[in-house]
């Protein structure tokens, strides 16, 4: 209320006087970043663009430091990283008190984003007659699912949606992944993945509850996460969903497993994100279809997020959709992890093109998010 009251007064006369002066070009370019930083939308918390670019430079299409063999060997590590990210998502997934509406809003926002990106990219793929081997619908769905997660980088309360909008894409992705990879019926694959996650989490929980000290707990926790990722990769299942199920289990199970998981996995979160981004960047082939699909992914993700924010704002009880959208625009690494999981389950040229397009599109989404005017400029 107070803020709206200030808005009604119009621009600050001092600011207006300063704005009339000549502003250097660099300052003008940096203005959106400064504004976002001031609002708690730290632009460098998950620098997707930076690490994907670094990965591309190190990858086979760049300097070749990270060759095709190296990437193949990292696939299991990527699956373990995806499982760890799934655990983080699972730990944050259950709506806290009074958050049920927020959860519905987040899922609605994710659904709208998925639909917009899948429709646009599906249309383009049909026009280009690409990815016929993978299937037009499946390819568009992979792109839509990869676009939906947002980075939970914002510090203000509305960005809680960024935590919660991962759930629906992870579950739908777990249904889709067996369709693309091994010959497992989708529902059976979903059940198997959930069973794997819960089973490993149960073992981990028993070990964690009987551990003698913190060091032993850390070893049990890391072992459980490695088991989740390795087993999911081996079976061609979604490591993300297995991790999500494990995180959820630890959250609802009695004891302090969720606290231990948050505390002991936390220090590795940034490392895992960097690993995923570097691998995703290294997998980008500098080819016209990858770049074109990546551009479409970035633009329609932006559109989908804004539309999703409009749809979700009334459900969440928020009055400013643009403020909500600002917290959702930064791409979530879970989307990239899902695209990498598709490439792992189906190592062919189509899946590589998709994963490359998602990585490039996510890297492009970040500067687009920085340049989108945040709500504080509404009065200007």
């Amino acid at each position: 209320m107070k803020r709206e009251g200030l808005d009604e007064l119009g621009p600050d006369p001092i600011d207006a006087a300063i704005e009339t002066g000549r502003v250097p070009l660099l300052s003008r370019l940096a203005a959106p970043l400064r504004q976002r930083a001031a609002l708690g939308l730290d632009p460098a918390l998950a620098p997707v663009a930076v690490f994907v670019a670094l990965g591309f430079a190190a990858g086979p299409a760049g300097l070749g430091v990270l060759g095709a063999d190296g990437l193949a060997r990292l696939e299991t590590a990527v699956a373990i990283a995806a499982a760890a990210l799934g655990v983080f998502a699972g730990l944050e997934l259950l709506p806290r008190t009074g958050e049920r509406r927020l959860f519905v809003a987040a899922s609605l926002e994710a659904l709208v984003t998925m639909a917009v990106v899948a429709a646009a990219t599906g249309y383009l793929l049909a026009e280009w007659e690409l990815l016929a081997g993978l299937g037009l619908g499946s390819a568009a769905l992979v792109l839509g699912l990869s676009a939906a997660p947002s980075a939970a980088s914002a510090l203000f309360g509305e960005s809680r949606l960024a935590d919660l909008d991962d759930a629906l894409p992870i579950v739908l992705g777990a249904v889709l992944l067996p369709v693309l990879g091994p010959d497992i019926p989708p529902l059976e694959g979903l059940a198997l993945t959930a069973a794997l996650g819960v089973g490993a989490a149960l073992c981990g929980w028993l070990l964690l509850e009987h551990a003698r000290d913190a060091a032993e707990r850390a070893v049990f926790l890391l072992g459980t996460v490695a088991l989740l990722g390795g087993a999911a990769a081996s079976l061609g299942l979604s490591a993300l969903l297995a991790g999500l199920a494990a995180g959820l289990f630890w959250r609802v199970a009695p004891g302090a497993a969720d606290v231990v998981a948050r505390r002991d996995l936390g220090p590795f979160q940034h490392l895992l994100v960097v690993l995923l981004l570097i691998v995703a960047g290294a997998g980008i082939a500098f080819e016209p279809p990858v770049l074109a699909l990546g551009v479409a992914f970035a633009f329609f993700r932006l559109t989908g997020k804004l539309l999703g924010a409009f749809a979700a704002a009334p459900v969440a009880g928020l009055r400013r959709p643009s403020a909500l959208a600002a917290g959702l625009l930064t791409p979530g690494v879970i989307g990239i992890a899902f695209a990498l999981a598709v490439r792992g389950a189906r190592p062919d040229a189509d899946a590589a093109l998709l994963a490359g397009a998602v990585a490039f599109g996510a890297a492009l989404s970040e500067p687009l998010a920085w340049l989108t005017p945040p709500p504080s400029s509404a009065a200007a």
Partner: protein
Amino acid sequence: MVPESRELRLLLVTIGASLAVLVGLARLRFPAAGPAPPPQQLLPIDRLGPQALYEDLVRAVARLETRLGPHLVERAGEDGRPALALLWNSTQALAWSPLPERASDARILAVDRGRGLLLLRHATSPPPAALAEWSPEAAGPIYLAAAEPGPGGWALRPVYVGRLRATHSTTWGGVLAVSGASLTPGSFLFTLDGRRLGLVVPDAGGAAVLAGSNLRAHAESLARDPRGAAWSGVRLGRLPGEARGALVVLSVEEWSTWAARLRSGDTLESIAGGEPASTLEAEEALRSAAAVVRVRRGSARLQVRPAREPDAPGLRLADAPGGARVVGVAPDSPAARSGLHAGDRLSAFDGVEAPTAADVARRYGAARRGTRLVVVAGHGREARALVLEKP
């Protein structure tokens, strides 16, 4: 009509920009990529392990075949099977044989009858460019190429070697132990870029690679040993794990001048007052009739000299129905002077019909010096009478 709400304006601008991008991108056309390849289902272990591309391997082996062609020499093996030799220098080739005592090829220049190494005469004009050598202390996992003889000529086979490790062999001295690969003695190993690794030899019930300076030492020792006359008939080895440790007698041939003088298990402390650096050097020193060897046998220390003449006819025999078969004849021995050859069958020896190897040793040992023993030997259906004189 411009919307008042900032949020709506932002949304409409974004949608407009996105639709413009969509229309622009939809006009693009990409060259047809052809039918999508079938999905490649890799097992997790394949994802984790080294993945050499099969096509690359095939290309490398094909290139190598052309390059190695002038260096490899096909020959008939002593066991009747095809065998292979490697050009060692411009006039000589090196090979390994499972039956060196049967070596009768006119091209053979030298034979190490204890180990089976052969040096053959093989001149090529012009000689091919010498192969570079690769002599690692340890390596692996690695793909190598094994040149192996076959009924249709020699062939190159890619061999995946888990690990190569320098080790010590009682028979060969320094060798490379190979793990994770099945190798055939007598074949030669090369790197995929054409460097010579070595000769596969039998060792300790398996196979090892004789390579580097030790392969050169064996070949040079053979080159100094015309017609294989120099082998003393004594095989020496070193105790495992002792590169400069005591030399131990592994076996003494019955025709050797050291027979009944040295025994298997004797430890040699010195030969002719010196301590040989290698088993090869020691075996060469034992050729000398003047060699005096200090030996430790159990707790006793002995000084041993070779006999002037061996108290044996110089025959290696294998018992067979109808009479012992001659497997090998020692050069310059009474048997060689009598005209016996490998492959002969003894139908009578000093009055004993269809003799066994033990009969021959007993009758020869019982005969006085200067006695002329009558021998009936045959090859196939042909039989001939010979005189074997005990010197």
